[in-house]
């Protein structure tokens, strides 16, 4: 694979390696040849809309389902041929909190500890340590069904951490949580990564990927449509926005006219009165020069000029937008949505 030497991840070992993974459910190709790598101690964000195949990917990688083709190796173990060894080194936190609602927080963790072959004593002390670590000590003896959404999710994370996993899968860990609880979960994940855990995170939220992941793989309909570092991806997609501010705030509209008359990029400029800026979408460095030229030709002095990379939302839209132009791949549901 091509490695960018400036990238901090390039020297690290690969903890999760997926090649050509395929999984069908009847006629539907949930995974259609997925390739990805997660480097040791990093967070890979797997981004995609509902039904893109994110959960299927996680279920394959945690041995819950068997892929139809391809290979996946996690911490050196093959998902198909060494499932038991693999299960010992992974942690899984699903989209729905997978804890036993009828058991207390402590009993939940103790149970998982015993199933991971800890002695009774070890299982007890590990449970207590994790309850403490995830701020659940006060609620330790209450049934999990009385927990709030955030507490449940924290208990779920704690349960995933009992076996000191090498690789942790987080399948949409904050779906359905309120912003405050979401921030709590993010903080926990960040601190787990600091402890050296490798994380594969699936999410529909760009903000979440930006917050937690260092690298991204964008999947749609079971295929990887883009992958790389977050900044690389943004640059690759282009679609930057130029923010031009006149030296004299009173010249804002003159500046807007200058850009509107000449249309140096062919696209319309927008005036942001509150920020005192004119925004121009550009796709190349030539267009940047053309904008500056047009403004100078109009006799307006530029106070400041900045280039803004697109948000992940925009990256995602532009990537999935490309795909819909290939009509032979359009599934009936998506056609309905398009109509």
């Amino acid at each position, binding site marked *: 694979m091509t490695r960018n030497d400036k990238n901090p991840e390039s020297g690290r070992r690969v903890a999760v*390696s997926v090649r050509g993974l395929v999984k069908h459910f009847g006629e539907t190709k949930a995974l259609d040849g997925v390739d990805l790598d997660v480097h040791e101690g990093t967070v890979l964000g797997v981004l995609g809309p509902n039904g893109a195949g994110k959960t299927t990917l996680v*279920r394959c990688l945690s041995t819950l389902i068997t892929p139809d083709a391809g290979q996946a*190796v996690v911490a050196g173990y093959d998902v198909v041929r060494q499932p038991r060894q693999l299960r010992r080194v992974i942690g899984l936190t*699903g989209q729905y909190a*997978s804890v036993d609602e009828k058991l207390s927080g402590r009993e939940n963790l103790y149970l998982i500890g015993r199933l991971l072959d800890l002695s009774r004593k070890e299982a007890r002390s590990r449970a207590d340590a994790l309850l403490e670590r995830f701020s659940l000590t006060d609620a330790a003896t209450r049934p999990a069904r009385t927990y709030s959404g955030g507490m449940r999710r924290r208990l779920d994370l704690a349960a995933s951490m009992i076996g000191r996993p090498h690789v942790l899968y987080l399948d949409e860990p904050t779906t359905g949580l309120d912003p405050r609880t979401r921030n709590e979960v993010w903080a926990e994940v960040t601190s787990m990564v600091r402890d050296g855990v490798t994380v594969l995170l699936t999410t529909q939220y760009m903000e979440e990927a930006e917050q937690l992941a260092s690298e991204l793989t964008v999947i749609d309909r079971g295929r990887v449509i883009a*992958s790389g570092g977050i900044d690389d991806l943004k640059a690759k997609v282009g679609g930057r926005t130029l923010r031009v501010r006149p030296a004299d705030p009173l010249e804002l509209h003159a500046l807007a006219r200058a850009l509107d008359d000449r249309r140096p990029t062919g696209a319309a400029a927008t005036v942001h009165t509150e920020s005192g800026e004119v925004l121009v979408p550009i796709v190349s460095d030539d267009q940047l020069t053309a904008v500056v030229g047009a403004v100078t030709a109009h006799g307006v002095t530029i106070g400041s000029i900045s280039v803004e990379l697109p948000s992940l939302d925009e990256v995602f839209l532009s990537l999935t937008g490309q795909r819909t132009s290939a009509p032979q791949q359009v599934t009936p549901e998506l056609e309905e949505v398009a109509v």
Partner: protein
Amino acid sequence: MSAATLSPATPAAPTITIEADPKISLRGHLRHTGALIRRNLLWIKQDPESMMDAVLMPVIFTLLFVYVFGGSIGQSLGGGQAAYVQYVIPGMVAMMSMNIAQGVGTGFNEDFNKGIMDRFRSLPIGRGSVLLAKISVELLRLVVAVTIQMIVALLVGYHINGHWAGLLASIGLTALFGSAIMWIFLVLGVTMKNAQSVQAMGFLVMMPLQFGSSIFAPTGSMPGWLQSFTAYNPMSALADASRGLMTGGPIAHGLTVTLAWTAGLTLVMAPIAIRKFTRKA
């Protein structure tokens, strides 16, 4: 993948040495099953009402059959209600096998519709542990139900006539057959969409097998087609064996047929249940 690529290249798969996946030791299996049994017992502690069916069903069934039908069926047995009590109680011990077994599928299905099964299946435990733990706890419920059943039976005038060993053997046989039946309901629990359909399906299977048998009445007066059904119905065999054991009557035929059904059902259904459980998408 560090460089941004819009059309990802497919590099060669990494070479790894595959060492055989180690088997789980017997101790490991026992530890895992024990931990899961503890979980199911904590459920009962947490929610004692879940024992209501095991406690109340035998009371209601016994009172209903003895006092509603007992007098008239007993007459044909040549001894009135007292004779019917002697007839029906061993049958009811047998009936518990299916009544309790039915519940196993419903609970299991509920587990599946929450995320907890995914967690269990992503842990390095034996494939049968979760199922065996469930069956163990249901067998415990079965023993509780039969015990209550016998207490009520003695209260309504059942005479054990010293056949205590026979009673214990009958309970053991019921438990054994019950565990075989549970595999069927576990398969239903894994494959069906929700707990309601599991319950409805369980009811459909259970009713003809229970009532189309020698549990509640001798089969001699039934029409020919029904007699052929009851003759092959394992519930009849179990009820006959139970009756033989608890009253000192003949047991050979009932016992053989029951044990054959138990072995057959377990050998066929247990692997299917474990397979469905492991492969559930």
